[in-house]
Each structure stands twice: as C-alpha cells, then as structure tokens.
C-alpha cells in the first residue's frame, strides 16, 4: 500500500516537474538578452553617443555568442575589429561632426511610425518562418569531425590551422581581393576626409 502510494507520488512529481534548462541555454539567454536590449537602445537612444555605446555592448554580446558557437577565432576577431576599430571610428566621427541638438529633438524622423510597424511585421514573419521548420536541436561535437592533416591536434588548434590552410588554398582569391579592398578603402577614406585648403 505504501509502496504504491510512493510510486504514485513519484510519477506525479515526474510529470509535473519543471524542465531544468541546460547550462548552454542559460549562457545563451544571458548573452542574448543584453544583445537584444542594446540593439533596441541603438535605435531609440536620444543621445547619439549613447547609441554608440549601446552598439559596443551589442558587439561584445555577439562576440560572446560566437564563443558559445565554438568559433573562438571569430569572437576574438570581432572584438579586435568591430569593438576596437569600427567603434573607435564611429566615436571619432561623432566627435568630428558635432553640431546637432543632441537630446532636444526626437532621434527618429517622420517615417519612424511606419518603419516601426513594418519592422514588427518583418520580425513576426521571420520568427514564424523559423518556428515552422524542424531545425536541429543538438550540436554535433566538434571532435567527431575529421580535420584533415590537423586531426592530431586539439580541436581549437585544428580549426585555426584549417582556417589558415583554407585561406591559402581554397579561398586564396577572396583573401587577396580582401587585401586589395582594404587598401582601396583606406586610400579612399583618407582622400575623402582630408582637409582641403
């Protein structure tokens, strides 16, 4: 009698127990909520410099998401390039183009109402599209893939070594074109922004 009662209570507890989220889900939520909030602040902040700081926060959180997806090289590159260089460029440009009445008028222009409605619709459509497909739920561990001639290394090193190898074999032309593009962009930016006297 008591054993049956115990079994009944156990079954009831198993059926109504809340599902505990895994640690990756907790870390994802801890990175995604600041990213989303900071992205919203980029749009809605009255002061332009607050928008720039919120953009830096978003970029840091997105770098954390890359690290969660086991793309550590990309996370570090994101921090070096985006937070280190592009955010500094944006800050310099904000300092060099002062003159707007920050905080006096609304940061949004005349078509902001229509834009907000259309963005809400777009987000609903995208989320509905994402929810309607059977995406994979679980990752396949990186160690199960074969990293070619770098299979004898630990997985993080093997990824970076394969990255270097791919840059110089399969993706050589985009790599060199990227170098030319950066040179042209640098020269063009200096030419456009120099002081003409």
């Amino acid at each position, binding site marked *: 009698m008591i054993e049956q009662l115990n079994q009944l209570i156990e079954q009831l507890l198993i059926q109504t127990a809340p599902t505990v989220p895994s640690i990756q889900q907790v870390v994802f939520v801890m990175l995604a909520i600041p990213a989303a909030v900071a992205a919203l602040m980029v749009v809605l902040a009255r002061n332009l410099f607050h928008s720039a700081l919120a953009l830096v926060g978003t970029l840091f959180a997105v770098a954390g998401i890359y690290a969660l997806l086991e793309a550590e090289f990309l996370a570090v590159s994101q921090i070096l390039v985006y937070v280190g260089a592009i955010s500094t460029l944006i800050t310099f440009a904000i300092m060099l183009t002062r003159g707007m009445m920050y905080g006096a008028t609304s940061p949004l222009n005349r078509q902001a109402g229509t834009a907000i409605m259309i963005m809400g619709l777009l987000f609903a459509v995208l989320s509905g599209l994402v929810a309607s497909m059977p995406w994979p739920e679980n990752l396949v561990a990186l160690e199960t893939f074969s990293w070619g001639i770098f299979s004898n290394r630990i997985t993080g090193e093997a990824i970076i070594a394969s*990255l270097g190898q791919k840059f110089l074999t399969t993706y050589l032309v985009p790599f060199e074109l990227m170098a030319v593009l950066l040179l042209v962009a640098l020269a063009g*930016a200096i030419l456009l922004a120099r002081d003409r006297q």
Partner: protein
Amino acid sequence: MVPLSWYLVLAAFIFCCGLLAALARRNAIAVLMGIELMLNAVNINLVAFWRYGAAVEQLDGLLFALFVIAIAAAEAAVGLALIISVYRSRKTVNLDELTLLQG
C-alpha cells in the same frame, strides 16, 4: 543544448533593430550604426548554420563571417569619411536637411 531556432530568432531581432535604425534615424552616423547591426545579425546566422550543419570541417560559414567582418570594416571607414566630408561642406549630418537629390 541550445536549439538552432533560438540563434535565428536572435539574429532576426537584431536585423530588425538595425533596419529600423537605418530607416528611422535622423543622423547619418546612426544609419551607419544600423548597417553594422544588420551585418552582425547576418554573421550570427552564418556561424549558427555553420555550426549546426553537416559539413563543419569545410569551415565555409566561419570564413564567410570573417570576410563579412573585413568588408564591414572597409565600408564603415569609407562611409564615415563621406559623412565627415559632407559635414565639412554643409555643416550638418541631419538627413532631413541633406535633400539635394530629392525630387
């Protein structure tokens, strides 16, 4: 384990925020910040699809995202140089007042 759809919804939200900033802000630099947000959202999608896909050892998603970061750096530099140049000649970066090409 984190389902793939969570990453895609986050990327969709950041993309919508970036597009809203590009369409609805007055200042030209805020529009550029919206463009950077959109590129970051696309990068999240690329890396998530790479990680949850079948051919992870091809590293194509990771390389694509790296190229997107480099191109975003080049485009931000040129865009900000343009904005500084416009500010020098017209003393404003308010997009409501830059209406020379408007019909």
